[in-house]
């Protein structure tokens, strides 16, 4: 009872704070980082769905991100489709490729699947580099239309070219997607998916068609990443084959691992914390004039895997349990 009320109150405060954040933080660079961390939240959530929940090790997640971005950008540039619909198109195209990549997963797992997925993302990157007529190669696509303004009656309309307004778009996307993913997670579908990770043979033996479930998870995960890519394309208005590189995938993975793999909140926390951390490290680098950002990234990842398997979520919930076990501490 008590805890439920607290939960609702805390949840409301959280939502209000998230909505109010860009009103308080007016520094546009910080707002930009907030939007970027939002994009990474979507990527981390989608990768966690596939790898954390379903146990399908995907090291080519950046491919879905890039495919969504290129699809939406190209469609809106060549067919003048509204970028808002582009968000959906980016997701759909990525999800088709997700389905394709899902097929090998019927028979492969662990390092075999990992290398296949790296191969997939490298091949997509090569296509983006080499199909110059369509993608402008390594120069990238520029001049992508921004999200079109929404007209509110006469004269007034909401523009979507600033970090401020983009923040609310990505926030809305995150709310929707996290809600859908956590609902899925609690559903029977979610349980079955997790059984793929725990004991695939067992799941098969009780008559579960594991292939269908794997395909579904691959497609949903790719859809989310593709939508994130499409949003990113219309926000930055420039995309390049670099988006498809394994480096991007490794960043996503680090975020999920640091936040806590296989949890709902882990990827969200991890994405936000690490995006801010890596920007914060720039200030440290400036001070000491050494490029140590990536090393710290690697060390943090290693330490988390070795000593903090549950990530930040594990630490926080441990802390939470510790506090609630000692009620006198609070009063």
């Amino acid at each position, binding site marked *: 009872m008590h805890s439920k009320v607290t939960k609702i109150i805390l949840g409301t405060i959280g939502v209000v704070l998230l909505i109010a954040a860009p009103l308080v933080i007016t520094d546009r660079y910080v707002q930009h980082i907030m939007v970027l961390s939002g994009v990474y939240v979507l990527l981390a959530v989608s990768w966690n769905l596939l790898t954390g929940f379903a146990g399908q090790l995907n090291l080519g997640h950046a491919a879905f991100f890039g495919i969504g971005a290129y699809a939406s950008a190209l469609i809106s540039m060549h067919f003048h489709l509204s970028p808002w619909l582009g968000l959906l198109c980016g997701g759909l195209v990525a999800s088709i490729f997700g389905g394709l990549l899902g097929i090998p997963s019927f028979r492969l797992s662990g390092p075999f699947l990992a290398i296949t997925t790296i191969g997939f993302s490298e091949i997509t990157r090569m296509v983006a580099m080499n199909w110059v007529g369509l993608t402008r*190669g390594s*120069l990238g696509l520029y001049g992508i239309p921004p999200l079109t303004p929404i007209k509110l009656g006469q004269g007034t309309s909401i523009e979507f070219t600033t970090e401020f307004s983009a923040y609310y778009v990505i926030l809305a996307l995150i709310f929707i997607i996290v809600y859908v993913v956590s609902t899925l997670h609690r559903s029977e579908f979610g349980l079955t998916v997790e059984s793929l990770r725990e004991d695939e043979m067992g799941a098969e033996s009780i008559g579960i068609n594991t292939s269908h479930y794997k395909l579904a998870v691959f497609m949903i995960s790719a859809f989310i990443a593709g939508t994130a890519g499409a949003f990113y394309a219309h926000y930055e208005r420039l995309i390049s084959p670099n988006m498809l590189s394994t480096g991007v995938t490794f960043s996503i993975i680090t975020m999920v691992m640091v936040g806590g793999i296989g949890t709902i909140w882990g990827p969200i926390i991890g994405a936000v914390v690490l995006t801010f951390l890596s920007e914060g490290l720039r200030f440290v680098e*400036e001070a000491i004039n050494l490029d140590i950002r990536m090393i710290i990234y690697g060390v943090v990842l290693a330490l988390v895997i070795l000593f903090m398997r549950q990530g930040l979520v594990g630490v926080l919930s441990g802390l939470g349990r510790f506090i609630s076990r000692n009620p006198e501490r609070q009063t």
Partner: protein
Amino acid sequence: MSRKNALRNVIAFIVCAGFLFCGSHLMAAGDPIKIGFSGPFTGSLAFNGGEMKKGAQLAVDQINSKGGLFGRKVEVVWGDDEAKPEVGVAVVKKMITRDDVLVVGGGYNSSVMIAVSDVCSQEKTPLVVAVAITPTLTERGLDYVYRTSPNSPQFLMGACQWLEKERKPKTVAFLMENTDYGRDGEKIYSALAKKIGAKELAHLYFEIGDTDFTTQLSKLKNLNPEITFCIGSTTEQALIQKQSKELGYVSQWLGAGGHFTEAFFNMLGTTSAYCMGVSLEPTLAMKDPVVADFVKQYEAKYNGARPGIFSGQAYDNVMVILDAIKRAGNPTGKLAADRDSINKALKSTSIKLTQGTIKFDKTGQVVTVFPYVVQTQIVNGKPELNIIYPPEKATGTYQKPLPWNQRKF
């Protein structure tokens, strides 16, 4: 549990953001004058980025040792763009909105700089590009965007003239880095080949990070073109030369600039003989007092290291920026006004630097810098770059590549 964590998440987020937010500052007279400088300081292009950083640092040190500008110190805010457009955008947004830089300089990759140029023109902050080569960058006609280095047609103009007027090849082939850098150059050289009626035998590519080129070189050897165009960076170019020697492939190599670095000659030694390209290598025009002075100071500062083309370009870049700030008057601290007056000052830039006299056209493109056509020639057992075109600048005469087994060094 999860909602509680959500709250914690939010608190952490706010605290994090707060840390970044506070410490915002207004620039007052007496504070240092800040300029931004971005480049790929980590990753596979870190070497080239490092060369840029050294050149830029030298320029700032020179000004500061003479008392800075208006009695104020000049400070550089370095931004590592990792050669990635999205990182470049974040870095430059940070420079403009947080570090309050007056001008953004530097910039290596064309893809990064196109993204950054959008940001800078939106933010009405002058962007002075140091290295990136694609013509698109200035051709879009964005205000606040300048480039102190030649674009690709300007870069290869000398080489094209040399081919047309002197070398007149019948057959050519291409081995290009598969990036906008390589492909831009390929377009220009290919157009020239069509103009002079040379047969294009093959268009081959390689990726950044490739190490084995024997496939491409064997194919080229079979076709035996007079000229092999090859545009790429130091590592790949050095490997290509080494492997041509191993396969016994002889052709006149003609590239763009950028790969004639100290590391290139250290790795190859005499194997680098006969390689050609176009270059603004500061060491070439040592007779020029400005260049000689730059090279001397650079070697003194960096333990005798020879400045490469990127060091020179970055040096010029920062000098142009500082010159414009000087002419625009002591910055008042009102960022928008200061940036605007620097933007105006930049338009009338005319300053003699290592690449020559720098003047911009109305798109912000430098129109007075043309690289020389150079060839590696072996003098006393050591590779040396000689200018062979245009004739009035030449420091040596063109040497036709000999077969590997007839080379006497």
